[in-house]
């Protein structure tokens, strides 16, 4: 399990985003949850016991402490070669205790939620501090939150047949799309993350966070060449999300198949600096990497970001206003409440090119004497919360997308993306393009092979010449990795013209 962790590079330096394989943990059991049900019974924890545990976590001089409970059923199905090949169902259950002194964190977790195990975790976490003073937890008061992801019926423990029907539909559509489609894998996964939280400031909340994903991968071949492509949709919603025409299994399958067929004819991309137009939606990866990670306040206050100390300075072109918001209903990046009891907000990160603020968790807000912005998130009960993104995007501008494309004599139009990576310290970022076209005399012409774009955050953001009026938030299965923790996020962008970015052609 943890054996491989230290060979990874990413946890140490890089922060990145990937399109996740459609695999999640799901659960079920016979326990049916409802939004109004009190999760205290699920976790077998009373306010009195929670207070006892918090006292223990504070017993060696920590200034604050919190308890995070999580019950998370996951279910996934996969069709391959036209048959339902894998069916999985599982539960992850546990609780984590955090004790905080300044920006020092003691963290321990347990998969067993009996009082003795939880007590041990609280005592272990307490060891981050070492003094005789001890703070007392305040009385609990429930955090009142809106529900951004109402679902009529949670499907996780329901009959698998509707989900199998979806996969069959995706499989059949992709195969019928074109005779050159030679292999199709479609997968569906869902989870229902049920969390409960208590902290020594007296905050208490619970939330039920549904997440479902559909992904289709297609291989196409014509006897000489072979190419692959994938498409996905994901949301905090019920199965009805896939009833919308643009999210239907057929639509996702057609998108994957069409891209694979187009890419059979792909030509090598040009090398060197080029004019690049980013298509609306998935290209929000640029905003996520070039700007987003560097504005996560835990990097900023430690001076580990190239945006550290630059509030009020010009860091992007004047036509750029960049926002992170956890409030988009039903998006992967939506949160009713973050993982440390703060309500999500709409945070203006950059306004008309000027750096305005950062995304905070509780600790970074305290260290920078700012307010939490509802960006404290953790992968699961096994991890302490970090400052993370939710839905991050560039606000729409004035140009019609066609107008932007026709303004370019020679360049690259990038439409589909696999993910990206950034070194927040110097600000260099890359992102991978999986669907791109040459622009010649204002028109899209030849499809281009997979290519990487590379740039430096503020440098590239200052080269944005035109911003389209077609902002789109991508519903792809975006998963963001930082410090070994992966969380679901959303990205968004309108059509954007960049005067120059290095294209990694061959």
């Amino acid at each position, binding site marked *: 399990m943890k054996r*491989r962790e230290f060979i990874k590079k990413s946890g140490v330096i890089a922060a990145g985003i990937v399109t996740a394989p459609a695999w999640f943990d799901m659960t079920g059991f016979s326990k049916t949850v409802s939004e109004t049900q009190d999760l205290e019974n699920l976790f077998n924890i009373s306010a009195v016991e929670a207070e006892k545990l918090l006292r223990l976590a504070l017993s060696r001089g920590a200034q604050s402490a919190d308890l995070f409970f999580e019950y998370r059923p996951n279910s996934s199905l996969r069709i391959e070669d036209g048959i339902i090949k894998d*069916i999985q169902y599982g539960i992850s259950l546990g609780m984590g205790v955090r004790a905080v002194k300044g920006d020092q964190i003691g963290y*321990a977790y347990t998969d067993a939620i009996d009082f003795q195990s939880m007590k041990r975790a609280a005592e272990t976490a307490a060891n981050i501090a070492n003094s005789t003073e001890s703070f007392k937890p305040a009385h609990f008061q429930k955090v009142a939150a809106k529900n951004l992801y109402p679902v009529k019926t949670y499907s996780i423990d329901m009959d698998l047949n509707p989900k199998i029907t979806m996969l069959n539909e995706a499989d059949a559509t992709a195969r019928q799309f074109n005779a050159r489609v030679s292999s199709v894998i479609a997968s569906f996964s869902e989870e229902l993350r049920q969390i409960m939280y208590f902290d020594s400031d007296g905050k208490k909340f619970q939330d039920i966070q549904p997440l479902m994903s559909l992904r289709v991968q297609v291989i196409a071949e014509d006897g000489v060449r072979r190419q692959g492509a994938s498409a996905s949709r994901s949301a905090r919603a019920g199965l009805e999300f896939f009833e919308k025409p643009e999210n239907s299994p057929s639509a996702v399958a057609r998108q994957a198949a069409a891209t694979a067929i187009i890419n059979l004819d792909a030509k090598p991309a040009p090398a060197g600096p080029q004019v690049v137009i980013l298509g609306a939606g998935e290209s929000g990866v640029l905003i996520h990497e070039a700007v987003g990670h560097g504005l996560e306040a835990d990097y900023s206050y430690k001076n580990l970001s190239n945006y550290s100390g630059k509030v009020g300075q010009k860091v992007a072109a004047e036509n750029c206003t960049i926002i992170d918001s956890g409030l988009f209903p039903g998006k992967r990046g939506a949160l009713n409440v973050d993982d440390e009891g703060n309500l999500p907000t709409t945070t203006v990160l950059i306004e008309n090119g000027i750096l305005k603020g950062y995304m905070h968790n509780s600790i970074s807000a305290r260290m920078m004497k700012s307010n939490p912005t509802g960006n404290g998130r953790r992968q699961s009960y096994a991890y302490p919360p970090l400052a993370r993104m939710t839905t991050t995007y560039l606000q729409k501008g004035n140009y019609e997308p066609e107008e932007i494309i026709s303004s370019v004599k020679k360049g690259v139009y990038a439409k589909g993306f696999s993910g990206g990576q950034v070194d927040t310290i110097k600000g260099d970022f890359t992102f991978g393009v999986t669907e791109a076209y040459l622009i010649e005399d204002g028109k899209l012409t030849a499809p281009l092979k997979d290519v990487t774009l590379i740039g430096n955050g503020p440098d590239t953001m200052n080269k944005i010449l035109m911003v389209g009026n077609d902002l789109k938030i991508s519903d792809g299965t975006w998963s963001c990795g930082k410090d070994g923790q992966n969380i679901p996020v959303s990205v968004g962008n309108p059509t954007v013209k960049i005067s120059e970015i290095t294209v990694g052609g061959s």
Partner: protein
Amino acid sequence: MQELVKIAENVISEARRGGADEVDVLVNNFTNTRLKIRLGKVEELRQSNPKALGIRVFKNKRKALTYTSDLRPESISKMVQKALEIVRVSSTDEYNGLPEKHLFGKVQADLKLYDPEIAQIPTESKIKMATELEDLGLKQNPLITNSGGSFWNDSYGQSILVNSQGFSGAQEFSSCSLSLQLVAEKDGVKQTDYWWSGQRAFNRLDSIESIAKTAAARTIRKIGARKPTTQSVPVVYDPQTGADLLAILASVVLGSAIYRKNSFLVDKLNQPIAIEELNIIDDATLPGGIDSRYFDDEGLPARRNIVIENGVLKTYLCDCYSARKLQCTPTGSARRGTSTDPSPSTSNFFLPAGKYSPEEIIGSISNGLYLTDLNWVGINYVTGDYSRGAEGIWIENGKLAYPVQEFTVAGNVLEMLKSISMIGNDLEFRGSINSPTFKIDRMMVSGQ
């Protein structure tokens, strides 16, 4: 450990009583510590003892998997019932099933995968080591202005596999690592790099001093980086970027990638795919190896597989499912977690050392690139097309001349394998995929 074997055996009996044809159970039980020191303070101390159990059930050649981190008997029992319930809606697949009985086995030699000392190291000593490491790193050069943190990680515990065909095995693993990330600044430009050492045994870790010095040297050498001009040049892969190229091979040589056609090695078995001097080995029996094991996650003995021999692709790496599907022999390569089905994976995967010193390889180039870092996006596994964000040092007249950043290197992996021309003598086993330095005759560098 006996208690966990007992739990697994009970699951098998219960599932068999419930009508399963075949069952296997994997239980993992590890104790982990993660410690982060930054600027002399403990920033994070995380301790845990995760346990989890995964159940695979086969019935009429249908398959289902359930798992839980909740090991109370009633919770496990519910997962057994859930597996029996959902197996009915999966499809019949003739290739499903546990391994044939004659395939089971375990390596008998002591592979030195568990060091009892790691469990005995007091937290204070871990704090002291990581603090010392950071302190030494920060002192290496006045241009080093900040630390991204000094980390201690350790993990030890057991993995238990029991199945209804009579296989029962437990293996113990341990590992520990120290790593340090530093930041240097000159003329308002910041640079960062890191170094680490990770081993199965505590006494095999590199010294704190050598980790600190390497982390500092790797950070300092980036100062003054330029963006190179766009051109086609010879490229030297250092051991880290070399391992990155091997990691691509490690993904596409798997039986699962082959039958899904998600690999540029489809239809390439027994064909020359690389220069004649190139050999690639996957050895799960390497003593002390980070990815060594006694048996794989289906109960087959760990083994040493020659993947590429004299440039010819000799085998795909297969678990039982992909082997049946491709009509070849399983290679003891099955890996899984408690929440995932087995699929093939490499173990200690490496390119054996060649005869050239790194200096000789660099010295053979009048104008070219020494590659030190690659970003992970930009690989098409179906076609082998390769376009990666990179960092490195420019080579002029056979010498490392100045650092370069913000550029890409591009090519096609199949063509790259045929244009490797010098293999270095500097192979070290640092991670699970390891490479010496080597040269590729020509690649496209895209910069200014």
